[in-house]
């Protein structure tokens, strides 16, 4: 009995498999959406938009690796081989110029571009643009806020909520009260995010002519802005204000430090709010902690000058080699609709790029700081937009790490030399 039923089972499986293969040609086209890992929000959006397409197409999601750099590596390898299975891509903004320049992204028609940028924060539009063309569809947009312990700010005589604070003020406050600052000193993308925000807040730019040919790219680090950024990072590193694990402190480690007894100020993405509430609910954190946490605009470098907070998030790219570009454009517009962005923000904690989503009562309830996030996004400065972003970012991480070694006189110069030589193909990285 055993052998015969096994043979039958195998045979019927093969028939079923063949049937499944053959079915692809008849029904509606299936769009594959390569998504970054989240809390299931993008899969839900795919299902919603499949429903509202009413049979015009189906959207399936395919999961990319957790790290943004690994996502880029996988997508670049596939797209370089003209992978036609990639219809929609959840793309980290720094890699957009590289993908656009390589011809990996399908063109976005003007009418679609106008529709998807209406009411969208400027930071997200800038991040989705390359050489004055919108090359991706803004989806969700992230920014960092200054999170502070009210008790520490009060003791230092600061009121960050109403009076924007400077880096020098929070450094002094932490040093005087023997507390730690939550900042990201790890040799990873988080460090580039921090360096860029500091340089931009000081009125500088990491790359001054991002659209130039690779051999002529000019860096703007050897400037007053670059020196001020190096001064801040070096001081925090040398005075031990980043805590004992500063040299490999990422966003999550900063949050843990901030939640601890020696927490004071922290710059971080809004995910920390939901994570802290969850920690209190699970009983891992003291319930008094929530009342002690305040939020404000990212610190500025010089008093009276506006900060340029970090900008992050995800945009939707349309794969250039897919067989269903029109359907994919439709699907992208559905995914980024105001309702869907509000839903995504409430359920997955990722802030919307469309300002209208912030008026949703559910959003206002889940994020008491929603208006501040919107304001911060309008002010946010993107990381250097260049097709060679990976080289620039890794070059910065190599020269500005460990943070205690950063010196205003030498570090910006070393970074400029290294990155320039790497871009000219004269050095390894």
């Amino acid at each position, binding site marked *: 009995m055993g052998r015969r039923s096994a043979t039958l089972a195998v045979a019927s499986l093969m028939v079923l498999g063949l049937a499944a293969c053959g079915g692809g040609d008849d029904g509606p086209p299936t769009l594959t959406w390569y998504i970054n890992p989240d809390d299931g929000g993008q899969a839900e959006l795919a299902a919603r938009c499949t429903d509202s397409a009413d049979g015009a197409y189906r959207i399936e999601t395919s999961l990319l690796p957790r790290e943004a*750099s690994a996502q880029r*590596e996988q997508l*670049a*390898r596939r797209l*370089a081989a003209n992978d036609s299975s990639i219809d929609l891509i959840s793309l980290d903004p720094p890699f957009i110029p*590289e*993908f656009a*320049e*390589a011809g*990996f992204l399908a063109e976005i028609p003007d009418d679609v571009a106008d529709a998807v940028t209406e009411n969208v924060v400027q930071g997200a539009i800038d991040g989705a643009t390359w050489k004055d063309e919108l090359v991706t569809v803004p989806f969700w947009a992230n920014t960092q806020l200054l999170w502070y312990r009210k008790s520490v700010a009060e003791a230092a005589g600061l009121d960050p909520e109403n009076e924007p604070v400077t880096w020098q003020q929070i450094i002094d406050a932490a040093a005087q009260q023997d507390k730690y600052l939550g900042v990201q000193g790890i*040799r*990873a993308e988080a460090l580039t995010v921090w360096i860029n925000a500091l340089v931009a807040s000081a009125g500088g730019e990491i790359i001054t002519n991002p659209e130039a040919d690779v051999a002529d790219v000019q860096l703007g680090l050897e400037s007053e802005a670059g020196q001020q950024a190096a001064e801040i990072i070096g001081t925090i590193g040398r005075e031990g204000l980043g805590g*004992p*694990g*500063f*040299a*490999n402190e990422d966003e999550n*480690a900063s949050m*843990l430090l901030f939640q601890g007894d020696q927490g004071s100020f922290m710059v971080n993405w809004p995910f920390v709010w939901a994570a802290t509430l969850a920690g209190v609910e699970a009983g891992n954190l003291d319930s008094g902690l929530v009342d002690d946490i305040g939020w404000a605009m990212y610190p500025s470098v010089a008093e009276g000058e506006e900060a340029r907070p970090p900008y992050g998030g995800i945009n939707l790219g349309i794969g250039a080699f897919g067989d269903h570009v029109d359907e994919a454009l439709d699907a992208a517009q559905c995914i980024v609709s105001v309702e869907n962005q509000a839903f995504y923000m409430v359920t997955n904690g990722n802030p919307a790029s469309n300002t209208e989503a912030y008026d949703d009562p559910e959003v206002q309830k889940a994020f008491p700081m929603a208006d501040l996030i919107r304001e911060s996004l309008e002010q946010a400065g993107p990381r250097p937009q260049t*097709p060679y972003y*990976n*080289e620039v970012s*890794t070059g910065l991480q190599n020269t500005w*790490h*460990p943070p205690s070694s950063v010196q205003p006189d030498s570090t910006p110069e070393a970074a400029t030399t290294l990155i320039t030589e790497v871009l000219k*193909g*004269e*050095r*390894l*990285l």
Partner: protein
Amino acid sequence: MTTTRVPDSAAEQEAVAAALSDRARAERRLGWWLAGPAFVVMLLVTAYPIVQAFYDSLFQFRLTDPDAREFNWLGNYWVVLTDSVWWQAVGVTVLITAITVAVEAVLGFALALVMHRALRTLRPVLRTAILVPYAIITVVSAFAWFYAFDISTGFVNSWFDWLPGIGADTNWFGEFSTSVTVIIASEIWKTTPFISLLLLAGLAQVPEDLQEAAKVDGATWWQRMYKVTIPNMKAAIMVALLFRTLDAFRIFDNVFIMTQGSNNTEVVSFLAYRQTISRLEIGLGSAVSVLLFLCVVLISFTFIKLFKVDLASARGER
């Protein structure tokens, strides 16, 4: 398995030789038939990529900009070999290789002795226990060691804070010496079983008669070890060292997981990874890979020529 018998006469001796050579020929033919397909597959999966990598290494070629690909002669090799980053990576790789192989040889030998001398009933349990680390995937063991030493999740700091130099604030991945210590320790923990297994096979080959004879002559344990055991398993030792050196020189997972090359812990294979996979500079990355391959060839050549490693005899074929 084969028992040899002393032939009685010269004629018989000749006949045996002829029969053997016939049989040897048949065996050789069978050998080719058995090994041939594997040989062809090896050529396809190793020789082809090596040739392709060498070809790619002669071009300036970025995956995202294929139109700008241009022939560069040996320019990529010049860039690599004149860059301090390459020599730094080579230095770190040699350091990690030398320390891990030396420590593993001693530890592995001790473990092999324990396994060899253990009571018959204990032996299977002991061998399994010793082999467990080797059965764990390297990435998994790297994560385990990383989390154990990490300042926010690790337990090492609180368990060993009674040792000088270790406290709650010790950041193992904050500087070169401590990072490299953890990388080396993890590598040793993971691969010592491999070396001890090879050495155990060598120990089993040492004839018991020689040991007995030495014992009868009144040799001490140390004398027997130095005069009988080690000389008789020299081939096994050299093969174990060769395999481990080649393995250790290509270390990647531990560095990738624990430090991502920060604090100057970059090793050669990580350098190749960064150029090829992260930077998508296929030409430059292939040049680093080819140089890594040449280093490995050089190590094998040195071992085989200088130390006269005989791979065949280690397998008990001669």
